[in-house]
């Protein structure tokens, strides 16, 4: 059971206090998009062995969604940051690079 820190209210809490929301930084494709784009948006998900960006909601706390950068293999949490961003902030990337020099970067 993971320990996560909500970047909005600052509380570090048990996984059961949060609800997961799957892969983060997806781009929404609505009306007018091609079948390929819509398929990628709806169904294609990364399942990396290593660095991953995930959406979580502090459902039984402040109610805010946030994003966790963590390692799916060791469960190390590199950082959590508010969801109002299209890509991981530079300082989060830096933290990940410091811990995972071989990481090929967020694609």
């Amino acid at each position, binding site marked *: *059971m*993971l*320990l996560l820190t909500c970047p909005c209210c600052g509380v570090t809490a*048990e*996984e059961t206090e949060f*609800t997961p*929301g799957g892969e983060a930084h997806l781009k*929404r*494709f*609505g*009306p*007018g*998009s091609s*079948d390929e784009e*819509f398929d990628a*948006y*709806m169904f294609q998900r990364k399942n990396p062995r290593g660095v991953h960006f995930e*959406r979580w*909601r502090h*459902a039984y706390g402040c*109610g*805010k*969604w946030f994003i966790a950068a963590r*390692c799916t293999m*060791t*469960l*190390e*949490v*590199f950082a959590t940051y508010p*969801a*109002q961003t299209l890509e991981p902030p530079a300082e989060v990337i830096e933290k990940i690079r410091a*811990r995972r020099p071989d990481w090929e970067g967020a694609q």
Partner: protein
Amino acid sequence: MSHRLSSGGRLIDRGTPLRFSFNGKQMSGYKGDTLAASLLAADQMLVGRSFKYHRPRGVVASGAEEPNALVGLGSGNRFEPNQRATSTELFEGLRARSQNHWPNLDLDLLAVNNLVPQFLTAGFYYKTFLWPRAFWKHVYEPIIRRSAGLGEAPDAKSCDADRYEQIYAFADVLVIGGGIAGLQAALAAAEAGARVALWEQTAHWGGRAPVDGVEIDGKPAEDWIKTTVERLEKMENVEIRLRCMGAGIHDHGYTLGYERVSDHIPGSHGPRHRLWRMRAGQIITATGAIERPLSFAGNDLPGVMLASAIRDYLVNYAVAPGRDAVIVTNNDDAYRTAIAMRRAGLGVVAVIDARADVTGALPQAARSAGIRIIESSGIRKVKGSKRVKGVEICAIDSRGVAFTEQLSCDAVGMSGGWSPAVHLWSHCGGKLIWDEAGHFFRPDPDRPPTGADGRPNLRVCGAANGRLGAVLAEANAAGLESAQAFTPTAETGPAATDTTHDEAPMEPVWIMPRQAEYELRAKMWLDFQNDVKVSDVQLAAREGFQSVEHTKRYTTLGMATDQGKLSNINGLAVLSDALGQPIPATGTTTFRPPYTPISMGAIAGGAVGDVFQPLRRTPMHDWHAANGADWEPVGQWRRPYTYRRAGESRTKAVNREVRNVREAVGLLDASTLGKILVSGPDAPRFMDMLYTNMMSSLKPGKCRYGLMCNENGFLMDDGVVARLDENSFLVHTTSGGADHIHGWMEDWLQCEWWDWQVHTVNLTEQYAQVAVAGPQARRLLEGLGGTDLSRDALPFMGWTEGKLGGFDARVFRISFSGELSFEIAVPAGQGRALWDALLQAGESLGVMPYGTEALHILRAEKGFIMIGDETDGTVIPQDLGLNWAISKKKTDFLGKRGMERVAMQDPERWKLVGLETLDGSVLPHGGLAVLSGRNANKQARTEGRVTSTYYSANLGRGIAMGLVARGTERMGEVLRFAGPKDKVIKVRIVDPVLIDKDGERQNV
């Protein structure tokens, strides 16, 4: 024979004898005994039968690793099967019974399996029961089910009479294992200022050290243990706990502790078990090591025990497993047992050592005590049927065709070396390495488990780290380093010095003798509990099972309740040998929590009965309960399904309620309905994205029914939206959907359109809501007075607010029944008073409350859909004829793109229609319309299914809705639905709206 010695026993209190029974036979032991010790003291060597072959089995170990001595404990609603006698503390009146035999322990007729051992070899089930196919269900499975399983399940009807609890806790440093290493580690961490918890699974501190003659600072270990425990007890930053097993280590330092609070004092106040849910910053495992058996023919006979267990019973309980023992070993440690027996005045016939030239300090001490040592030898086979009578000896490097010597004895102590208990280390990602000198897997210090920050959060010390001797210095360092994770400058003093005899290297012996022929290998047990032999593992290897995980499942090695604590290493060594590869290349199977089985009660904790889950109550809940409500669970709510009057059946009550709404007036507690306030300058725009239809055009004071879809275009929720003012909407959701829809709104607002100014609040529990429906509804409300509810003042799909009979009410003129209907919302605190006032005002008008079933029937008569009945996550609004509720003007809304996919446009899609049985009967729930022929999966082809089906008291026949292929184009066609027992039900496709198609009743 096994017996109690007249003196000694460091853990027993001879002044307090305790009586207990085994298979109904009265026996006695002493306070401090384990059940196993008491049974051995009473010469009860035979304690159970094995799983497959029903072979006689006796106690083999002295702790958590015991595979054989499993008993059923207690009786009635306190009966529990598969309890280990070796870790069950004796108490007055304990009742135990042995397992896995018929008709009784001494005469087990199922032991016939043993006569044809080929009968149940590895993979037997897979090979034997494959054909003929039809035999599986009616012949094989019933037989296997009858004979499979250990012990007896407790009576299904009786509830566990005991209480259990769970507790959350935190520690900087959690130390698991209260031997001398664990005690020292805890002391060091505590002295360095950390908040420390220390758990020990047994009832005693100090582990094996006192039994094994360890000295600390030149004195017996016992003195140091006593002083150290006293010091720890006095420290405010330390909590130490006996009878608490570290059951599992999970992510980020989350550790489960299984505390057996009162197993040893039944009937005492307090819980029986307590499950600790501990978040530990740093963890130290000092879980010791487990001795390995040796694999020789007949090593499972009662009387063959681990050498260390014999020593434990002698020193701790003054119980001797025999009068004349043979010790068989490949290492020096077993000589401690020989010396201890001799010291207790017992006979040691010989120590049989697989090694040549045995000259270590311990063997020399044994020689000096006059004990005979037979070198380069092994046991060829053990003689005896229900207990050991003697052994045959042969050269260790031989096929064992004949014996070189026979020895008479009544006990055999075996030692194949020690395996560190690495389970906890492995639970959360710690890796192992093979120790070439000690021939065991031990924790790899370079690949430890890590915590949330990615840094190591677990250290291991003592025998669990493969260490023999100089344990305290290592434990001291582990304790200090763990504390320094919190305070880098923390310091602690040096540790005391522990000393023990030096030991010469062991020599691995995986089967005895090394080239044993098949006849012997087929009697060498690896897994005592699941009856897996050396020959089974070798057969698995020959049949191509090269992965240790596959071999485990094929042979069931290590899959019993002991999870292979004794068999693991021996089994994979045999597999490695059969595959011709080194042991590290084979690797181990995965260690999974819990370390030993924990009770279901502890897992449930206090969450049983009424507090199993939270119950949500509407303000009118108590009235419903007092007035015959038949409850229906809706999420965590309870809603009245119907209100039964005295002597009335459910069906009759429902029919009465349904008729009364159409003929007079009914009240429905609609408080569970989701109510979410959506407000802000961008609220109209946001509402247009959420709903398939246009919401921004809704005028304040008006209501509109709307649909919400997910991005796939599948219908997710529906309900009525009321526009409160220019910038705020009150969204009604389904009762079960409120929390999910609120979360869904927040998801889009926070993660996609975070620049939109919208605020959402889930107000579901802030309001009580009552639907007043039926031709007399307006007259009833006029009786309360205060607000003009006439047709012109409050037309259909309008809402108003003001005083209604003194209540602060918001009145919505909406209808889910097709009748004249008002939904009255008041602050939750006024809900019950409103309910009472409505009942009173309606008394002369024939008012009755109605439940959810009447609600369902009334809406089905009108052809209204219900989320979860007509929808199942694959249905788009167009399937339900709801195209009118899908905006063509909006360029975007959630689900729009999903609906545009080719499959959603398919004219063959199943569409919602009414279904009318030709004979007026009620269709079965979920019934399918069957076509002739088979589909690609060889299943019957279908062309439709029932989504809602009821008996309508108003129409006097069954009514139903369903989804049918091209259904709306096939009005009047007759379909064939499958009924029970292959009956065919003929059903005509009709319009789903059966009452008042023009909606005049709701419009009056």
